């Protein structure tokens, strides 16, 4: 066999394999993507909560996208405690002012950033939350202070529709 002929064959093999691989990927992708959140799941993107009954020092837990959301009406003490913390003491530095635009209201996903358990209210070494699963302690701003969780509890997109209603999502 001459070298020239071999090269022609090589080209055909490579081209065929490449087209085949693209075709296979095109078939495989729908099989993978079908597992992502479907339209009906995505449609449940926002929820409105009436918070008029919430008194300072109490937490309301509501379900949003299948996850609990903590709505905490903080006392002045808690706000002062959260705002007096030095940034260098934080594992995931975030100002309380950025987490709670209206200092009285702290709205965040009640999901531990370690492995997704729901932390308990008014527990732990920092008077905020404590995750019973693997022992993460959060402060009164929901920031991670001690334990295996890497980040602060996430603040979702939310707004006050009126004085008594919060829209999450």
């Amino acid at each position, binding site marked *: 066999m001459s070298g020239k002929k071999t090269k022609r064959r090589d080209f055909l093999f490579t081209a065929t394999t490449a087209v085949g691989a693209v075709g296979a990927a095109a078939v495989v992708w729908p099989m993978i993507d079908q597992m992502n*959140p479907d339209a009906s799941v995505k449609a449940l993107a926002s929820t409105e909560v009436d918070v008029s009954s919430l008194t300072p020092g109490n937490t309301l837990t509501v379900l949003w996208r*299948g996850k609990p959301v903590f709505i905490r009406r903080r006392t002045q003490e808690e706000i002062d405690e959260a705002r007096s913390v030095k940034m260098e003491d934080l594992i995931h530095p975030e100002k309380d002012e950025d987490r709670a635009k209206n200092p009285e209201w702290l709205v965040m996903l009640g999901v531990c950033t370690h*492995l997704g358990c729901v932390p308990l209210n008014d527990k732990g070494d920092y008077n905020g939350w404590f995750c019973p699963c693997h022992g993460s302690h959060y402060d009164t701003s929901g920031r991670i202070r001690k334990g295996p969780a890497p980040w602060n509890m996430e603040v979702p997109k939310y707004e006050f529709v009126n004085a008594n209603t919060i829209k999450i999502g």
Partner: protein
Amino acid sequence: MSDHDYRPKSRAGQWFNDRLPLLTLANHLTDYPTPKNLNYWWTFGGILTFCLITQIVTGLTLAMHYIAHADMAFESVEHIMRDVNYGWLIRYIHANGASMFFLAVYIHIFRSLFYGSYKSPREIIWILGIIIYLLMMAAAFMGYVLPWGQMSFWGATVITNLFSAIPLVGEGIVTWLWGGYSVDNPTLTRFFTLHYLIPFLILGLVVLHIWALHVPGNNNPVGIDIKKPSKDTVPFHPYIVIKDGFALLMFMIVFAFFVFYAPNILGHADNYIEANPMVTPAHIVPEWYLLPFYAILRSVPDKLLGVVAMLSAILILAVLPWLDTSKIRSAVFRPLYKQFYWILVVDVLILGYVGAMPAEGLYLLIARVATAYYFLHFLVILPVLGFKEKTLPVPLSITEPVLGGSPNLAAARNKESKIE
């Protein structure tokens, strides 16, 4: 092996066997020459086959009554327990069967560790076994999610969240696994599908595992290569069949004890509370057979490194044939390895114990020491031991130490009788 000379006696048999040599296979399995000194630790392969078949049969029957839907799964399990004829029995066999399966597989794995069954030329058998073990863990985990109790839900949440430790793509992977923004109905239905699929994958791998075993043949307590067939071997049938059968009966007594007298002792009461995404149970614990790895996960204070440590603890087993540098297989002739072997057994039991305890204070400290030792055993002790250890003289055949005739064999005989 006499496989290729085999010819069925009947003409019909010959006709069939010429077209599909199933009778040759049956003959191979019957005559398969087996070391005559196999002890009862070698009966767990058969016991594991029994466990797999039991799980498949009970699983199929449960699937006829179970409803994979977040709103109905919990009730359908109660329906199985209360209304379905013998539903309680089938479910208890299936649930405890998972525990029995792991009990047997741990004995099987530690048998291999003691007698060096993972060493050349049996590395592929060993690696296939580790893949089977990984699939077993996946199947058990997903099966535990199906009753949709509190432990199901939160176990699923915690384990799937392990993937969120992967940098950049982690969160996307978790959402993809869930089919939503939390563990919910789409998660349940796909777990049911995969839980149904995996046992058949395991079945296929078991066939490969046994096929790979039948190439070099069984290892044995003395750990030497033997001639096959020879006076060192006996045919699989009836010798091993009867021995395996007797061991299986003993095993079934233990199995039946759990099913009939303590069916919930290995489970968690919290799983009889329906899943509630708003409340995490105070103390989440996985099933007992995953506890050592859970302890390793929790002993590392960093999320990503914890997950890496846990996965490494399992995957390190796959490269064990190359970490253990000793040419001698059986611990019978390795006085130092034998001691380190038992330390490892105790270490894993300690990890299992602290895995069930809260991750704080002394428990956390013990978990960290035990985790460090686990890796030390495989990464430092085993490679070094192969060069440093002064091993005992190994007999030339299984028969020799029994009949005598070689100067260095009395020691070997003593050593062997001690462990049996």
